[in-house]
């Protein structure tokens, strides 16, 4: 197995691409009782248009298939629900769907290999019938309605609708009641066969393991599959501008919530190595920490004026198809707060001392992950999907400097390209 090491942190990461193409990443943590495994396919809500690698046919499936598949994967031919079975083994099992991947996971202290049996069994044995697909439609419909009611979700998806006109990242992960009405057993099998091919998957495991032993156990449970060439995904043309500046919705909230958004238009030119991506990722986060985080001037000012009560949350979300920053908060005067935030992000200075202090904080936060096998697994799967080696974050911190941070800040945080999404309380 390939080994990547960070001696300072005493971490070794073992990697192997199996014959069937599945990428396995093992991060051993000695003396930990808890174990965590996550198996993800690079298939998410933005992947509704693609070329079937076996037939070379262009495929257009309804939005929401990836999520629908996630729901149906647990159902077994013998009537057993794998999720329930895993829980009765004392495992903490779950699954989720994002824009760019679908993941199945569990954590446990005991019964790891029994859990591995079940996980690898259901992942490789889909069982869809007209009847069981139909049964799920109502359940997913309810979930979609739940999302529609969720103020934070509306806030977020509306921000993406401002940032992008056609990019599928703006779609609801679960699809809509209308789109899911077209999903059939055949759609599910076709997408399963394409996207759940091992060569499109990554598995991360962390815990007290001897890596070669674990790898053998994984291999034993892999079913043979015909080789598959790379899946070509079809996305709309790159958009050179934001879609709209402002959007507003009314939901059941006590106080207005807001989200500011920025596209990172420079990201497409630097989709480079893992290290380059890690550098940009960590730098954007640091800029946000410095300019709108808990120690920033603008936060202190807003807090003292009573305009915000708690710190703002922010994220930099990227894939090969999109890159954007979102900043979320709560305020009785969202527009005023937004104006001050975008002004601070464009114009406020950060000093070299601020930069060095924030870099120390970023270092700490990256190392903290290694205290918990679950945090490790999550970090490694998320970064692996983006083509980043998680250890590169530590390396990146040594390489970035004050000038680089100022450059990135200038590229992303332009007032006239910022968008605002607001969710206000229902009237009456």
């Amino acid at each position, binding site marked *: 197995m390939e080994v990547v090491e960070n001696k300072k942190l005493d971490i070794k990461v073992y990697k192997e691409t199996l014959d069937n193409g599945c990428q396995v990443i093992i991060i051993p943590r000695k003396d930990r009782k*808890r174990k965590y495994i996550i198996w993800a396919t690079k298939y998410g809500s933005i992947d509704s248009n693609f070329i079937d690698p076996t037939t070379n046919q262009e495929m257009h499936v309804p939005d929401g298939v990836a999520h629908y598949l996630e729901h149906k994967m647990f159902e077994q031919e013998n009537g057993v629900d794998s999720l329930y079975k895993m*829980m009765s083994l004392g495992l903490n099992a779950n699954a989720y769907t994002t824009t760019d991947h679908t993941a199945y996971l569990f954590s446990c*202290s005991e019964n790891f290999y029994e859990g591995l049996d079940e996980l690898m069994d259901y992942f490789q044995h889909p069982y869809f019938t007209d009847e069981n697909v139909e049964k799920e439609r109502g359940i997913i419909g309810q979930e979609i309605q739940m999302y529609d009611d969720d103020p934070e979700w509306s806030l977020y998806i509306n921000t993406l609708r401002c940032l992008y006109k056609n990019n599928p990242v703006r779609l609801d992960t679960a699809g809509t009641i209308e789109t899911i009405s077209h999903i059939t057993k055949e759609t599910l099998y076709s997408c399963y066969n394409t996207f759940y091919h091992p060569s499109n998957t990554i598995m991360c495991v962390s815990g007290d393991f001897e890596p070669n032993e674990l790898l053998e156990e994984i291999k034993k449970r892999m079913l043979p599959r015909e080789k598959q060439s790379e899946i070509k995904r079809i996305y709309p043309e790159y958009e050179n501008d934001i879609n709209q500046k402002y959007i507003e919705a009314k939901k059941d909230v006590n106080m207005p919530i807001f989200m500011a958004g920025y596209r990172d238009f420079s990201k497409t030119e630097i989709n480079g190595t893992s290290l380059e991506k890690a550098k940009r990722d960590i730098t954007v986060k640091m800029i946000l920490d410095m300019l709108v985080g808990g120690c920033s001037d603008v936060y202190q000012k807003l807090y003292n004026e009573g305009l915000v009560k708690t710190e703002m949350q922010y994220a930099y979300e990227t894939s090969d198809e999109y890159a954007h920053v979102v900043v979320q908060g709560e305020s009785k005067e969202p527009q005023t707060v937004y104006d001050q935030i975008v002004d601070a992000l464009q114009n406020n200075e950060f000093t070299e001392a601020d930069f060095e202090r924030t870099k*120390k904080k*970023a270092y700490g936060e990256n190392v903290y992950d290694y205290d918990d096998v679950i945090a490790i697994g999550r970090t490694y799967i998320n970064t692996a999907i983006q083509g980043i080696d998680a250890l590169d974050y530590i390396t990146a911190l040594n390489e970035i400097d004050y000038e680089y941070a100022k450059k990135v800040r200038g590229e992303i945080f332009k007032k006239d390209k910022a968008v605002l999404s607001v969710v206000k309380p229902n009237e009456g």
Partner: protein
Amino acid sequence: MEINKIKSKKFVTNAIAIYLTTKLDKETITMNALIPEILKRGTENYKTQLDISKKLEDMYGAVFNFSREKVGNFFVMKFYISTLENKYLPEEKNLAQEGINLLADIVFNPLKEDGVFNAKYVEQEKENRKKEIESRKDDKDAYAYSRALEELMEDNPYGSFIYGDIEHLEKIDNKNLYEHYQKLLKECKIDIFVDGCDVDDIALPEIIKQHGDPEFKQLSDEVKNKLLNEVKEPKKVIDKLDVTQGKIDIGLRVSDEDKYAILVYNQILGGDANSKLFQNVREKNGLAYTVRSTYSKYNNFIMIRTGIQLENFDKCLKVIEDQLADLQNGKVTEKEMTDAKECLYAALREIDENQLATINFEYARETLADDDSVEDKEKKIRAVTIDDVIRVAKGVSVNLVYYLTNEK
């Protein structure tokens, strides 16, 4: 005074904790709950919260936190800081010592103005507490539980709301709060814990040594509350709020003294998804979304908590009573015993996976008269028999039926 050192090598951080343990009473709970909020605002060395935050960032993103709890007859303030272990730092530095120094500074060296707390901070934080007390009804599940607790405990201070009440809050000012805190520091028990690999490099900060009551240890046994009164008929309380889901909270008096047998009893009754309550109330009859029971070992009660559809009140109550009766009538299977015990062992075995859980465990041994080690606890749970569980069941009686329902 000494640092309670727990040497562990499998983490990347040192977890540092200072606990102040004091008597719980209705007169002081409001002040005690407010104190940590004032302390976090500034110290003599770091005058503002911003200064503290910047210092934490500079310490490689060290994390500061605090909480407050009622435990039997005690009120406990807990202050934490976690720092990266020294060997993982990119420079030579004793960050663990810096961590405990900063924590001690926050707890024992608060910012003073004319010899007392800063007036502005006290007023602001009083306002925040006031909002917290007023919005107590927002979280319906927590509200129902705290109301049920009030009713179940009657005059006992354990029934008090954790933030106290507005009447007491309004009497607080920066002067009397400061004086109260100084008195508390003289009379409380101070426990200091460090869990991590740098424990041998940490010295006790001087400032801590001047505080605390060295005799407090003898009071450890007093953490236990007296037994609830025996009642002929359960007390019935109905609260009405604008809710779509109703809540039933049932307070059980537990007279048995074997806490391990009670633990197993509670686990079988409503500990998890295998339990009688979950299986019968939720799975078989679909009457509730959630149902569980929790055992308060320092107060000798079990509380059953449910969230139900409003129309299911009578039916749900009946099914719960049936489960209690079944246990009293000896309807307990070997499988239920094994499942319950396995679940309890698993929880015990996971303690040392988490530094804060380990610290809390050691604290209970040190100050709450809960002396058994993990191994002893497991042994004692293993020794519990079906007969023990039935004996516990026979000593259980319903003291309170609390119902939170809709206004209509």
